[in-house]
């Protein structure tokens, strides 16, 4: 178990992440088609000023929105591998290569430690652009290490979920990451440290059925798809149309599975409030050698 192959070649571990949003001039809203400039949308937290649609963003953007400037990436040296030689229409190895090309030095989750209005916080943010944000061994291991890091330094943890579920190409290993992350969050809980779970569009499958639903605070961005089974699977099973607004953030709030919904512009303030209210104290210093 856990044979780690050490590679000679280096990996990009610069402490700050590049943004994932394109650099072009114009930005078109996927919700209403409204066109605005990229500069404008980035200044508005990637939320459409006309309809409030929350554009999908990556870990780099979230770190920029939530942290006070500087932050340090953690565990960026963990890389997925095709240990089962899994091949469907494409081999998993090739899928990983393609994902690495698209997102050099990245994974389906990125972890960083930084400060929110001077108070330390660890964020693990999923990246949907990396194989659908699917949970494989690396996602599980990074969350596991993030939990250990929080316990060691007495820090609160925020996980930003955005995932299609488990990574099938890692078969039972991906399934067991549900157990691994949940068991580690139980340790965080035993240590009396708060876990904030933010669900964003989409949060489904094994991610929802493990760490995403285990927050001391469960919250979501507006109109995100959140569920266990995908809408298509449910529709095929029950052979009926699904009700309007089914499996949205608002639906989950209404059914008692979310504490609240947060507009992205209020995200930093909300997280700050939570840290303050939970009274998490830490003498953690943000230095590169941590």
């Amino acid at each position, binding site marked *: *178990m*856990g*044979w*780690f192959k*050490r*590679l*000679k070649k*280096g*990996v990009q571990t610069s402490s700050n992440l590049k943004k994932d949003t394109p650099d072009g001039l114009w930005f078109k809203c996927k919700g209403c088609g409204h066109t605005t400039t990229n500069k404008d949308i980035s200044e508005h937290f990637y939320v459409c000023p006309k309809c409030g649609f929350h554009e999908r963003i990556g870990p780099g953007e979230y770190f920029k929105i939530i942290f006070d400037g500087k932050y340090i990436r953690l565990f960026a*040296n*963990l*890389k*997925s*591998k095709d240990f*089962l030689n899994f*091949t*469907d*229409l494409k081999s998993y190895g090739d899928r990983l290569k393609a994902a690495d090309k698209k997102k050099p030095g990245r994974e389906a989750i990125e972890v960083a430690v930084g400060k929110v209005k001077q108070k330390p916080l660890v964020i693990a943010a999923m990246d949907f652009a990396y194989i659908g944000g699917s949970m494989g*061994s*690396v996602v*599980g*291991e990074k969350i*596991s290490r993030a939990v250990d890091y929080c316990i060691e330094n007495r820090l609160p943890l925020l996980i930003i979920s955005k995932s299609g579920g*488990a990574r*099938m190409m*890692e*078969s*039972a*290993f991906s*399934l*067991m*990451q*549900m*157990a*691994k992350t*949940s*068991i*580690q*969050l*139980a*340790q965080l*809980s035993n240590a009396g440290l708060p876990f904030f779970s933010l669900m964003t569009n989409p949060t489904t499958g*094994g991610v*929802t*059925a493990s*760490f*995403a*639903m*285990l927050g001391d605070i469960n919250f979501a961005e507006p109109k995100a798809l959140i*569920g*266990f*089974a995908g809408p298509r*699977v*449910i529709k095929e*099973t*029950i052979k009926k149309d699904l009700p309007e607004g089914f*499996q949205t953030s608002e639906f989950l709030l209404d*059914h*008692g*599975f979310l504490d609240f919904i947060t507009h992205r512009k209020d995200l930093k303030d909300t997280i700050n409030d939570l840290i303050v209210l939970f009274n998490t104290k830490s003498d953690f210093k943000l230095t590169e050698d941590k």
Partner: protein
Amino acid sequence: MVFLEFEKPLEKLHEQLEKLIQINEEGELDMSDKIKELENKINKKSKEIFSNLSGWERVQLSRHPQRPYTEFYIEHITTKFVELHGDRYFNDDKAIIGGLGKIGTQSVVIVGQQKGTNTKMRQYRNFGMANPDGYRKALRLMKLAEKFKLPVITLIDTPGAYPGIEAEERGQAEAIARNLFEMANLRTPILAYVIGEGASGGALGIGIGDKVFMLENTWYSVISPENCSTILWRTWDYKETAAEALKLTPEHMLEFGLIEDIVKEPLGGAHKDPEKMAKTLKAHIVKQLKEINEIDTDTLLKNRIERYKNIGEFEEVTE
């Protein structure tokens, strides 16, 4: 008798055997030598077929309509059993059953998915696909076990948690997640056995164990081969290929270190001799209980955390 596709060579031999037995019983001719010869042939052929099963054939065996289910094992393993119903919130899920039982001198809590044995009962049991209420009932019983220091035995046999509107409304994801979290901290031993289908989060929802075992003709995977085929190959037709690619057999799972042991089944599968299967399973459980009862609770929980924390394959790149 129901013969699966790969068992077809046996079907002919069994037909011949039945004819010989009939002739023998009519008393005109003594066929005992011929019967014996044919029985040996069947045995040899069976061994040949069953020592070489593909992943997909295992999946088919795990779903055999005559395969024993949780209720059967409980009946044959315990000397006393009281079934307990309901999650105390909303419902009594029929797809997960559980209760207090006695195995030898040891009181235990047993929880498992239950499939139906005929068309009517299959519907009643929702094909072994639990709703959130089932997972919450299971957790209630496990908490009961913790309170009274009783070991928990879970019997896993599900094609998955139920994907329905009500299941989502009542928090299928939350129910499964909560079980994973609570089972991590449960201060009593947990032994988990995959007795049939071990599909996805629906199986794992009662599947965290200090030790996890699989019966010989079962499977454990993140997704069923059919659904995997549909998603990755975009057609149902690659289920056999998907079953191979997923490496879902007990032998693979043992090799990966994801389970501790494989429980042997009678030749041809558990349904060929359910009583014998129950006896083997009981002996396995009794032995495991004896061993695990020796471990103090703090060590038990420490080991449980380590067991799951170590699961994962990846590269650690150095600068």
